[in-house]
């Protein structure tokens, strides 16, 4: 791996001399992409450079395939975010086709800070730290305010206002579900419900797509140093991120993503954004979120069962499906 990485970086920086890689190590966490940390040093025009990096590489088998995510998209989104106040790692290099690194990969900045150990803020953390992180978490409004046209993000494919953003997401995740390990009649009924209840939005925003605890880094002062995992970013209804973060599945100690009660999250987002929160739309995206998460878990379980992945988490994720289905039964009163 180190040799391949070195060859790739030399190709990307033909003027670099004495390029060296240190401490290449695969990192734990995350199910959708391989993550490797390393340091790269080189000399150029008489100056010395050092960078701490993260390599994100497509796995052999995944919980999300092709249509749901790709490295080029993530790379371009990260590049665009560099000129915004949204905390995100800088994107450095892209091997979009996997010509150098075997599979599509991107290299980005290693940002300081720690992730939450799971998809919820830890129950045992101090209330003060929780409150500070919570305040930063609702800065989601800042992401939704970003002018995606000026940021050159129209390549993501802007849906029209109205029901198209919701319809696109239902199409995307229903397609992922069709690639599942086994059929679930509750999910069939859920996708029928989603199609019958597509909500209309009057504005299109840059949506993160996986906005929750576990996908940000924070420090001891309560600052979110970076929002991570932009691979499912898209243009859509801003309520989608709120619905995702509101899911009971991510609850910790009864708090949305372990940070604050759901109602408070919505109220504070409303204050931050200056835009009314449409609870019906948030609910729709919560339902979609459960179906999406079940589709992800079932796709991962399939990759595990068919042996296209050796990541144990993909197998374990299959065990989460009943809980997600239970939430859907409650939500839809099936």
């Amino acid at each position, binding site marked *: 791996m180190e040799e391949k990485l070195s060859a790739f970086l030399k190709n990307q920086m033909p003027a670099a001399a004495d390029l060296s890689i240190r401490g290449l190590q695969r990192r734990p966490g995350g199910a959708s992409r391989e993550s490797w940390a390393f340091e790269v040093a080189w000399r150029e025009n008489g100056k010395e450079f050092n960078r701490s990096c993260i390599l994100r590489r497509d796995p052999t088998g995944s919980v999300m395939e092709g249509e749901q995510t790709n490295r080029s998209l993530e790379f371009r989104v990260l590049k665009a975010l560099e000129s915004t106040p949204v905390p995100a790692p800088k994107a450095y290099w892209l091997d979009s086709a996997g010509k150098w690194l075997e599979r599509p990969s991107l290299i980005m900045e290693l940002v300081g800070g720690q992730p939450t150990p799971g998809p919820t803020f830890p129950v045992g953390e101090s209330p003060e730290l929780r409150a500070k992180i919570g305040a930063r978490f609702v800065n989601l409004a800042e992401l939704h305010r970003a002018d995606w046209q000026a940021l050159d993000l129209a390549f993501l494919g802007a849906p029209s206002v109205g029901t198209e953003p919701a319809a696109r997401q239902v199409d995307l995740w229903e397609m992922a579900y069709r690639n599942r390990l*086994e059929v679930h009649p509750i999910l069939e009924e859920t996708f029928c419900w989603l199609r019958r209840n597509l909500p209309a939005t009057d504005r299109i925003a840059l949506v993160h797509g996986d906005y929750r605890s576990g996908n940000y880094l924070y420090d001891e002062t309560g600052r979110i140093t970076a929002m991570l995992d932009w691979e499912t970013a898209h243009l859509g209804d801003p309520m989608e991120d709120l619905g995702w973060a509101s899911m009971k599945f991510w609850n910790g100690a009864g708090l949305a993503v372990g940070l604050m009660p759901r109602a408070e999250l919505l109220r504070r987002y409303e204050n931050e954004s200056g835009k009314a929160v449409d609870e019906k739309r948030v609910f729709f995206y919560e339902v979609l979120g459960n179906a999406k998460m079940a589709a992800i878990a079932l796709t991962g379980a399939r990759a595990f069962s068919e042996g296209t992945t050796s990541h144990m988490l993909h*197998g374990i994720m299959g*065990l989460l499906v009943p809980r997600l289905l239970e939430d859907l039964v409650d939500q839809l009163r099936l």
Partner: protein
Amino acid sequence: MRPDIGDFLRGVKKSLAEVVFPTLTDPFALEQSAFIMLALDHVLARWDKASHFCREENRGLRAVLAEAAARLSGEAGLPKNAAGLRDRIQDRLRKEEVEDGADRPYESLRDGNACLRELLAELVGAASGEEQNRGARAFMKKQLEREREWVRVGEFVW
């Protein structure tokens, strides 16, 4: 015959915990090992109950689909696609009848259930009203309760 599967699984777990894990330093390998332990806990708790679990599901699926097929047969002027679905349900139920028996292998049960689930999903998707889905919903809720129990390991529930 001893050691049986449970003995082996407990042995594998002990060997991993006491021999393999202490030598690991790579953070990714350590994370994977923790997941392997979780998976082993699940398998240990359920390996000898898998056939029973599948058999119960099979019984429930056959009952709900037989009821649906009977209802569809009783409806006058059935659309062509609904008649086709009814015929496929009846066909599958006949196959299940033939394959049924105390000695039916686990894989056969599992694959049979997958076919029955597909038909149930189709039935749910084709239903024109809540009333038509009542039986299917009752089954799905019961099955979900069983699946929730299935993923419980001691006090831990996924």
